[in-house]
């Protein structure tokens, strides 16, 4: 029996959710200890006896058993989940209550409640994202730090700060609460940030980054399984993630070098993800409003469905960027709009659009601003200017993959 990829990480989030149902969120640390314990046990047994037929069920059985143990032993010393009322107090009701907490549908709901709790408005966005990654996705502080290129101590601080707020909030977010739709907005935002960190982030480890993207998709899919959360806006978010993630396999070439959109082999794009993304984008059109997620998904769809760069409907892409600038303006959006204009109207117009970005000083340290100028200069034949801008971009590179790509580009001019 082979171990499925990231089994422990996946199960960690599910088991913590079930155990929090029993122990209460104020005992989150206890829930995490029990999970850690179950993993230790699995390791001891499986390494000599081999991986069981259904490893997830095995882990769950161990966690259940331990939970039963803990509740019996610490009944008087601790208070557990108030939501389970007195059912933990009698032997007659204890086992069924624990079984219930580990039921598939409970685990799903508890994961959602945990997700909504992590996105508490009192917590800064970077804390929300770190919490989601730690509790729901099973990433350790060190792993999060290396994905975000931040110090481990900083991430640990974010997590412990977040957990303090969680533990202080007597119970997990109630999905029937009046605040639901406001909180859903923060959840989507956190998942969007998580995805973007994976897709555009600074880490050089492409494996780590694609894991972040896939975790974001997994959690967004979890949202879609819950009707009240499956709004057109959530569908649009899910669509944009899939349509972007479809390109991940083509983003690096065989040598591990960055491959820009213009040079990617489109046959390497993940056709299944494209299909899923397009289906969700279609469903997302049911609403009244067009959100930034809708427009971003539509842009990604325009690329995903074009057979080549030349066959891309740049007219439509520029139009979509115009809309995005109207809904959610940012210098990075403006930069991408300028690149699309360069495709539609030629390099001169593209350069004009780049220079016209009003808050372009915010892109001062963003390597892809000078890189975009370099591309356009190259296309209009000014090799010296192109080389200069690519070199400048290489100097701003955030990791070795970016640096290698930009240096190579400069060398080719």
């Amino acid at each position: 029996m082979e171990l499925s990829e990231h089994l422990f990480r996946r199960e960690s989030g599910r088991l913590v959710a079930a155990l929090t149902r029993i122990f209460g969120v104020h005992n989150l640390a206890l829930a995490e200890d029990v999970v850690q314990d179950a993993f230790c046990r699995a390791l001891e047994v499986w390494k000599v006896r081999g991986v069981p037929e259904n490893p997830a069920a095995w882990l769950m059985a161990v966690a259940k058993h331990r939970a039963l143990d803990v509740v019996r032993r610490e009944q008087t010393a601790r208070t557990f989940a108030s939501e389970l009322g007195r059912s933990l107090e009698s032997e007659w009701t204890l086992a069924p209550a624990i079984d219930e907490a580990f039921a598939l549908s409970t685990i799903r709901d508890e994961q959602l409640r945990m997700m909504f709790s992590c996105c508490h408005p009192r917590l800064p966005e970077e804390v929300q994202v770190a919490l989601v990654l730690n509790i729901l996705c099973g990433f350790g502080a060190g792993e999060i730090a290396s994905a975000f290129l931040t110090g481990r101590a900083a991430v640990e601080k974010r997590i412990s700060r977040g957990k303090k707020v969680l533990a202080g909030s007597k119970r997990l977010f109630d999905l029937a609460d009046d605040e639901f739709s406001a909180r859903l907005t923060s959840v989507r935002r956190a998942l969007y940030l998580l995805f973007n960190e994976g897709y555009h982030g600074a880490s050089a480890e492409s494996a780590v980054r694609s894991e972040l993207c896939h975790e974001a998709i997994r959690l967004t899919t979890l949202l879609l399984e819950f009707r009240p959360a499956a709004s057109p806006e959530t569908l649009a978010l899910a669509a944009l993630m899939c349509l972007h993630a479809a390109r991940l396999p083509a983003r690096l070439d065989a040598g591990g070098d960055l491959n820009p959109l213009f040079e990617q082999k489109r046959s390497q794009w993940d056709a299944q993800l494209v299909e899923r993304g397009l289906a969700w984008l279609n469903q997302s059109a049911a609403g009244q409003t067009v959100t930034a997620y809708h427009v971003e998904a539509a842009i990604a769809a325009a690329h995903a469905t074009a057979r080549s760069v030349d066959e891309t409907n740049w007219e439509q892409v520029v139009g979509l960027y115009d809309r995005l600038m109207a809904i959610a303006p940012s210098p990075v959006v403006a930069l991408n709009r300028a690149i699309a204009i360069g495709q539609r109207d030629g390099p001169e117009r593209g350069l004009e659009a780049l220079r016209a970005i009003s808050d372009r000083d915010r892109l001062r340290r963003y390597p892809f601003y000078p890189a975009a100028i370099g591309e356009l200069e190259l296309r209009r034949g000014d090799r010296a200017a192109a080389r200069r801008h690519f070199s400048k971009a290489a100097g701003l590179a955030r990791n070795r993959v970016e640096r290698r790509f930009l240096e190579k580009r400069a060398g080719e001019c």
Partner: protein
Amino acid sequence: MSQFLYLYRMADAARQDAMGTPERAQQNMQRWMAWMRDLDAKGHLKDRGQPLERAGKVVRGQQKTVSDGPYAEAKDLVGGFTIVEARDIDQAVELSRGCPILEGGGSVEIRPVMKMDM
């Protein structure tokens, strides 16, 4: 071919640490599986053995005093065993070098099983 007992020893703290994050636990697990598979493939695996609970009882002396133990804090608690077949102790030692417990600060004790050829 002779038989050798591998005793896996590791302190509790090191064991917790080797677990670290779920992802590390997974990697650790994969290394063990690969190592065992390799032993098996080369015909060295006589008995996969059994994992042992970390705590039990110790009975000692003529008084037959029973105490809890071994203690979890003990430096190198036996966590399990395996029986391998090898040409000689040198080969048994050589084979044990691939054991993942070594990466985590644990040890493998190698004991020849006594031959009963009278």
